[in-house]
């Protein structure tokens, strides 16, 4: 699946996840090298969020393996995966509404690993936060809540940061602002895997993209390796020739 010789930090092999009768993720394999950004793209219901949830331990896979730096995490329960270095920024942010902004961020330190991230560094990265740290997290705008959710995940000093649906429900300018902080995160040694519906956005930040359709991988590679028509075909499930005339 990935170029040989690369040191994979996160590796998923033949992962299948079922929600009851429905197979949400089917035989998906992927590899994320240290220090890279993998963007998982795909339409609604393609299984992107389920895939991230399974890597974080929220969903139990029916088959397949999840490996972090050579260690098999498949049977490790969700809270323990935080200690191993996996942190998920969940879909819809899932902040704790009765906690303040600062309390939300501090919950991230509950089982934190040793690493560069602490409250001071978070506040340096998001300068608006200290002034509003005593506010209830429920009072923030969507973009601000997303920043707090990312901050909460960073406090755990993860090795792999999983970000779900960053663009969902946010103004484009807010999304660009959050993506602008991505290079800083990578510089701190982080590896990122994100789920994105906005293909152009995904291609602009990712080192690799992987497209899912109905739970299966339909395309994987560097973002510049494919034409728009090829990506579109993988996204919507049409053969490249049939969709050649259509535009995204």
């Amino acid at each position, binding site marked *: 699946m990935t170029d040989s010789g690369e040191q994979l930090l996160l590796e998923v092999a033949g992962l299948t996840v079922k929600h009851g009768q429905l197979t949400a993720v089917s035989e998906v394999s992927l590899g994320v090298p240290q220090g890279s950004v993998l963007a998982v793209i795909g339409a609604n219901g393609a299984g992107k969020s389920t895939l991230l949830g399974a890597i974080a331990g929220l969903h139990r896979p029916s088959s397949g393996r999840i490996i972090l730096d050579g260690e098999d995490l498949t049977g490790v329960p969700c809270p323990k995966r935080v200690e191993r270095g996996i942190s998920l920024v969940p879909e819809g942010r899932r*902040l704790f509404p*009765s906690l303040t902004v600062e309390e939300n961020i501090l919950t991230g330190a509950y089982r934190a690993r040793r690493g560069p991230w602490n409250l001071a560094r978070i506040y340096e990265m998001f300068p608006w936060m200290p002034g509003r740290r005593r506010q209830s997290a429920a009072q923030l705008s969507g973009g601000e809540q997303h920043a707090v959710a990312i901050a909460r995940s960073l406090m755990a000093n993860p090795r792999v940061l999983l970000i779900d649906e960053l663009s969902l429900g946010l103004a484009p300018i807010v999304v660009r602002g959050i993506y602008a902080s991505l290079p800083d995160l990578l510089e701190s040694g982080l590896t990122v895997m994100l789920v994105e519906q906005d293909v152009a956005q995904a291609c602009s930040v990712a080192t690799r993209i992987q497209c899912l359709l109905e739970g299966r991988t339909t395309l994987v590679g560097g973002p510049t390796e494919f034409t728009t028509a090829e990506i579109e075909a993988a996204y919507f499930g049409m053969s490249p020739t049939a969709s050649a005339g259509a535009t995204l």
Partner: protein
Amino acid sequence: MTLANAIIQGILLGGLLALFAAGLSLLFGVMGVLNLAHGDIAVVAGYLAVALVPALHLPTLWVFLIVVAVLMVCGYLVQRLIFQPSLESGPLTPLLVTLGMSVVIENLLLEIFTANSHSLSIGTFTGGALRVNSQISLSYLSLAILGAAVLSLAAIQLGLSRTKVGRIVRAVADDRDAAQLVGVNYRHIFGLAAAVAFGTVALAGLSLTMYTSISPTAGPTYLIYGFEAVVIGGLGSLWGTLAGGVVLGIAVTVGLLINSDFGALAPHLVFLAVLAVRPQGFFPRRVTA
């Protein structure tokens, strides 16, 4: 003057009722579960003291500490081994499981201690009183129970708002899955909450055993008082729970002043009136959840 005395005695009684209610309020706030065996657990604590005080030859206060510690450990274990599996199999299961536990506890107590009521006396302290004037006297025991209630509620409140564990408890109450994503094993947190709840209801049971007496089937009566105090105060609000206990206590003592039978009925009428006028309680959801 007799009315003033009734109100003061009602406030003191409110402390006891609030002790019963604190654990209910905490567990409901954190897990959204009503423990129907709550009153019976208080009675178990009372009987444990009745059995241990003559057996251990230790100062009574030490025995009380042992009883509270034992009940806290039981709370953690019962939560992890019995309540947790029931929580995971639907919203009605915990009600059935705790109801079943209540029946089992009552029958075990009947088997071991018979249906006779038991009481604890710790010397002069139980009978002593602070005389304010010819009409009003405050018994040391009632004052101590009210003090224990206020201290317990304040400790829980401060623990929730100021400590790291308290922050995590509130986070779990908000969103279990999101809490798992920051590395929290919410089952362990539920266990801790249950330990605190069992500890406070053990204090309530010990207080009751000294204040009046206990019988194996006394639990459900106090479960209802506790439940009413929680609802009057507002679900999930700890200080509201104390206020609810005090309201019920005053209803009991003022009711007794009107007619000796009315004392048992009055608090339930007050509860119904509050439900009709202000169903969300007086201080809804300010602490947990």
